[in-house]
């Protein structure tokens, strides 16, 4: 008997908690991002963009008449911190979480959100993020495999590189993109002469680069983040390795130029179209609003794709007239060509964003870059 009352009371308590969060006149949205640490400028920008969109929505009367409240948790781009953030945000009662920036931190938090039926959308590009098939998760950027196919095509068929070196760090994103690129190049009959890894943050990459120098490569492809990419490029030229340097999407950050200094010139980047050249109506509107509010452009495309993730969720809430996360998730999965800031936003049934578009940029050393190829 005691057991039954305990059960009943806990059900009742659960119902009260659940209904109170629905009946309250605010809803909470979480931001899980690296607010401090190496990738702080990306994380802060994600937070800024979410707050910008939420302020706009609140000014229009909120979401289904409820004011939105943003709760931010700093995961420092570390898996352990990400797991703590996930618990914290769930306890705060958020119905959806935007972030995180890195695949590793996103993956570490995924299960907690799934168990708590909280929506999560991230720019993490690691293919493994989708493989768990959590209905709570959808990606707001494009997966590594899309980028690696594009990169391989460019290497093998456009530039006709004969000797390709692929480097990554040990993060799940970078390792995944490096592996995928190696596989895509091999599929096209290209020649990967070395597949190496560097340890992010160690700053001294001369040992690995010296080893590479002896192999006389045509191109060094780096699939990690800008904080290491800029140094790699500088140290590459310092050692007199005259190969092209091609960076994957996460090298596209103003800090890359600063780290590489004069060596940035001639670096090639493969990424989405960057924010400032996005041709869409929404892009012009929101990027101007962002610049007006924060007096600075977003450092890269990633805060913008996360903003699209939030816009998709808000759109789904309004269309389904519900905060039931299952309904929202189901609706998001039917989105087709939703007008995103980063272009048409289409989500496949497994939560994957499809319709990737990539651009090849060449950098000048003053931080500007020009489009050299779109295929």
């Amino acid at each position, binding site marked *: 008997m005691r057991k039954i009352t305990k059960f009943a009371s806990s059900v009742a308590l659960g119902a009260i908690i659940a209904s109170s969060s629905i009946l309250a006149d605010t809803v909470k949205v979480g931001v899980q991002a690296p607010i401090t640490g190496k990738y702080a400028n990306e994380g802060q920008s994600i937070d800024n963009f979410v707050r910008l969109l939420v302020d706009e929505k609140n000014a229009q009367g909120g979401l289904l008449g409820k004011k939105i409240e943003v709760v931010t948790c700093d995961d420092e781009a570390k898996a352990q911190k990400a797991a703590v953030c996930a618990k914290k945000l769930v306890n705060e009662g958020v119905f959806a979480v935007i972030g995180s920036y890195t695949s590793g931190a996103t993956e570490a938090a995924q299960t907690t959100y799934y168990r708590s039926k909280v929506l999560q959308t991230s720019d993490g590009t690691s293919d493994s993020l989708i493989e768990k098939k959590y209905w709570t998760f959808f990606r707001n950027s494009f997966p590594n495999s899309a980028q690696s196919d594009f990169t391989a095509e460019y290497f093998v068929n456009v530039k006709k590189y004969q000797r390709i070196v692929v480097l990554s760090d040990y993060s799940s994103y970078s390792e995944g993109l490096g592996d995928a690129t190696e596989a895509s190049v091999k599929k096209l009959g290209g020649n990967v002469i070395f597949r190496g890894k560097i340890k992010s943050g160690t*700053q001294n990459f001369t040992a690995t680069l010296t080893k590479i120098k002896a192999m006389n490569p045509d191109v060094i492809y780096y699939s990690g983040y800008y904080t290491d990419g800029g140094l790699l490029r500088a140290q590459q030229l310092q050692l007199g390795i005259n190969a092209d340097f091609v960076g994957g999407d996460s090298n596209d950050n103003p800090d890359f130029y600063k780290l590489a200094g004069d060596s940035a010139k001639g670096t090639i980047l493969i990424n989405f179209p960057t924010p400032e050249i996005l041709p869409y109506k929404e892009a012009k509107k929101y990027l101007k609003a962002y610049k007006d509010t924060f007096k600075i452009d977003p450092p890269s495309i990633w805060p913008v794709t996360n903003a699209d993730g939030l816009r998709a969720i808000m759109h789904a809430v309004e269309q389904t007239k519900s905060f039931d996360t299952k309904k929202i998730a189901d609706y998001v999965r039917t989105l087709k060509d939703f007008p995103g800031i980063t272009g048409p936003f289409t989500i496949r049934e497994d939560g994957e964003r499809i319709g990737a578009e990539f651009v090849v940029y060449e950098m000048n050393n003053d931080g500007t870059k020009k489009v050299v190829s779109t295929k």
Partner: protein
Amino acid sequence: MDIFLQQLINGLTIGSLYALVALGYTMVYGVMKLINFAHGDLVAFSAYVGLTIFSQFFGASANSLFNVIIIFLLTALVVAFVGVLLERLAYRPLRTAPRLSAVVSALGASLVIQNAIMLIWGPNMKIFPSDLLPNTTWQLGGVVLTFTQILILILSAILMAALYVFINKTKIGTAIRATAIDQDAAKLMGINVNRIIMIIFIVGSSLGAIGGLFIGIYYRGLTFDMGWLYGLNAFIAAIIGGIGNIPGAMLGGLLLGLFNAMISGYISTEWAETFTFILLIIILILRPTGILGEKTAEKV
């Protein structure tokens, strides 16, 4: 062969930086029997101080050698002051307390400095300009040497030699060595132990400051938590060489740098850290006091 020589240069450069930082650990340990865990963060702090002095007072103006020397001197001065302050606030009150309290205090000081850096300069990466020192490179056969590398190698060799002379040939050096052997006996001989400890912190912090500034100039990207990386490596270097032993710290630093470069170059970067610890364990098994450490009877 070229590749091997290049790895040698790479290893010696980073090894010199480790050695400069390791000297701070080893000198404090030698005299106070305390592992100054805040030393690595002081090194990170000095890189930030150097960057600030550069951008505040020199801006984009011509980077003459004179300016660079001024930046180094000012940074060493500021960091030496902070080092002395650290000793006054975190270690002196605990000098007679059990050793564990001082170690905990050191760890606390490390966190305080790290967070202070974050609060002062922000959590984002700060970046040293690439044109502070000339970007000249020399090609000798297949080996490439940069101006910064040569400066690091030469200057750290000079500093280490100067320190060696200072400790072994001067009166203050003799007092430092006496204090290291027995503080109470040194006091009875009229040595002002407080002053000696202050000198230790000034010298150790200044060397760390120069190391930190070089790290900033050579690698450019500064993060508030970078002190941990260099601190840990320098600490291991000090232990390998024999903690408390000044030539040992230099040797340990160079050895660790070389060892790391060779493992990363010929085996894999993945294993470099693992092998570092394996080396540490082997050395501690074969020579528990480090390579140059003396065998002394433990009094405790």
